[in-house]
């Protein structure tokens, strides 16, 4: 199979829950993990005679996302009914937006990688809609929980600008970072608050027209998205190479068997008979509302990166690692007060702190010691009160004990000795014990200097300030 002769064309549709307290059209809680059907009411259960009332915060969060992704905000949009029958959809239709999404166009920039230049992925649209309930399939019956019914979602639709599984992964990571920066979503895939449909087709490299695409539904991890696209691209190339034609169909990814398979149950579901929702007036976003949201926007990842490079002197790579997660970037900045060396703080967060977070399996914020304590530790290194190695030892202890930097340094006796008379005494002892080496050094064997420093450090139990040792030894040996 000649994979190189083909190019994949991929577009993604991402559904993400908006971080609101209440549902899109009623005052039910959106809390994850409640008991079955606890957070439901006649509105989100689709009882006769109820009317939806739109949640303002959901609209604001959709606008925030749109502004962050450089979309045009529609001053006038309407909601539509998307009709299909499924037990998790109590009204028999989902309130969504069809021809008039609240955000149009826009783009997301992907950072440069080892394999390529920075890329711009265009967006088609972002629209607001409500989520459906959740089915649990049993042996003889299915059970339905409507807690999720009516939870606000936005769907973010990209143009078919992605060319590989790797591209798709990079796009999703960038998109999730933006959603978290603007507080629109927590991006928790394991709680189903971030789900993805992939449209995949292939064409001969250099061809202009698109091939027939298949749609892989409902992927809920970055890994699955990448695996499913890789598999599907290979499958389509095999079909075409074998003289066949790719069928336009809806597929499901089977993560256990690592293959896509056609979805049977919703075969008639593609006829959604959209029409304007008669229960909701048009959604009008006046210029003042857009401006108010714009004024409340936080610094976005791209701006933060520029600031880190220009003002803090970090490399592009260092900035990329730090901004990828808003929690990490905020943490880094919280270590900075009263520190001169920003780069050492960046390195510390990228290596020591991120390692702890990775190894713990907990969320970043839960796993790591408070940023202020790490800042205090780094200030002690800068003030030569402790060595860098001592700081690492102290940090590991702080992760375990939860104690502060000062207390840990004191408890472990890690403070560096800068007392010149103590160090001078140790130097005298070492020099007195090694008269031959002293003579060799004075005769020109400069390399021996390191030996003397090591011997003094050893005599001081590793806690002496190396700079002070250097100065005193040099004075004594040349004097």
């Amino acid at each position: 199979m000649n994979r190189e002769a083909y190019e994949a064309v991929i577009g993604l549709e991402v559904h993400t829950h908006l971080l609101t307290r209440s549902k899109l059209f009623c005052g039910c809680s959106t809390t994850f993990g409640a008991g079955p059907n606890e957070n439901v009411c006649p509105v989100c259960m689709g009882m006769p005679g109820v009317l939806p009332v739109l949640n303002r915060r959901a609209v604001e969060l959709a606008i925030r996302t749109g502004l962050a992704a450089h979309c045009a905000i529609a001053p006038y949009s309407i909601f539509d009914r998307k009709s299909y029958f499924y037990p998790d959809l109590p009204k028999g239709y989902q309130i969504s937006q069809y021809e008039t999404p609240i955000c149009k166009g826009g783009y997301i920039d992907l950072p440069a990688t080892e394999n390529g230049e920075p890329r711009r992925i265009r967006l088609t649209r972002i629209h607001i809609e409500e989520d459906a309930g959740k089915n649990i399939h049993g042996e003889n019956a299915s059970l339905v929980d409507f807690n999720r019914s009516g939870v606000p979602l936005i769907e973010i639709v990209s143009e078919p600008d992605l060319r590989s599984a790797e591209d798709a992964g990079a796009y999703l990571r960038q998109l999730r970072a933006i959603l978290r920066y603007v507080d629109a979503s927590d991006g928790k895939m394991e709680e189903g608050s971030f789900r993805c449909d992939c449209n995949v087709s292939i064409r001969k490299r250099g061809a202009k027209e698109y091939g027939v695409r298949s749609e892989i539904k409902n992927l809920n991890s970055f890994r699955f998205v990448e695996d499913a696209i890789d598999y599907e691209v290979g499958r389509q190339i095999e079909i075409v190479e074998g003289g066949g034609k790719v069928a336009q169909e809806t597929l499901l990814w089977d993560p256990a068997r690592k293959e896509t398979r056609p979805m049977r149950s919703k075969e008639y579901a593609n006829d959604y008979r959209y029409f304007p929702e008669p229960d909701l007036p048009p959604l009008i976003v006046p210029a003042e509302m857009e401006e108010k949201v714009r004024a409340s926007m936080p610094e976005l990842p791209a701006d933060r990166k520029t600031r880190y490079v220009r003002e803090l002197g970090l490399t592009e790579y260092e900035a990329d690692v730090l901004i990828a997660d808003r929690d990490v970037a905020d943490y880094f900045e919280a270590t900075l007060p009263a520190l001169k060396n920003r780069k050492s703080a960046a390195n510390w967060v990228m290596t020591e702190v991120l390692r702890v977070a990775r190894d713990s399996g907990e969320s970043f914020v839960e796993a790591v010691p408070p940023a202020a304590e790490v800042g205090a530790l780094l200030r002690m290194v800068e003030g030569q009160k402790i060595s860098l190695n001592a700081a690492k030892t102290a940090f590991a202890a702080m992760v375990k004990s939860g104690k502060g930097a000062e207390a840990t340094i004191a408890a472990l006796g890690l403070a560096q000795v800068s007392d010149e008379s103590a160090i001078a005494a140790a130097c005298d002892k070492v020099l007195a014990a090694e008269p031959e080496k002293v003579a060799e050094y004075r005769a020109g064997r400069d390399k021996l200097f390191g030996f003397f420093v090591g011997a003094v450090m050893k005599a001081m139990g590793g806690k002496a300030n190396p700079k002070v040792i250097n100065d005193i030894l040099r004075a004594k040996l040349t004097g």
Partner: protein
Amino acid sequence: MAGTKITLEQVRHVARLARLEWSPEQEERLRADMDEMLAYVDKLNELDTKEVAPTTQVGEAGMPMRDDEVTNRPAAEAMLANAPSSERGYFKVPKIIE
């Protein structure tokens, strides 16, 4: 011209989408009804609306919105009270085959 717009196949397609089953007589009656409806819409199409924006709602004052506050208390039992079948707090439905 009534009687030529809607086919029986289309009637069956719409019925299938709505999970409804009709007898052949009912299908024919529905086909005729739907034909008449379309004929009526054709009558409306005689108006030139090229310069008129589509109206989806007559009240164009805009959308009233609510603040993002939780105002409902959990009432799972009341919500399940009218369910034909339930189990451990869930609505129970015939097995869904994926």
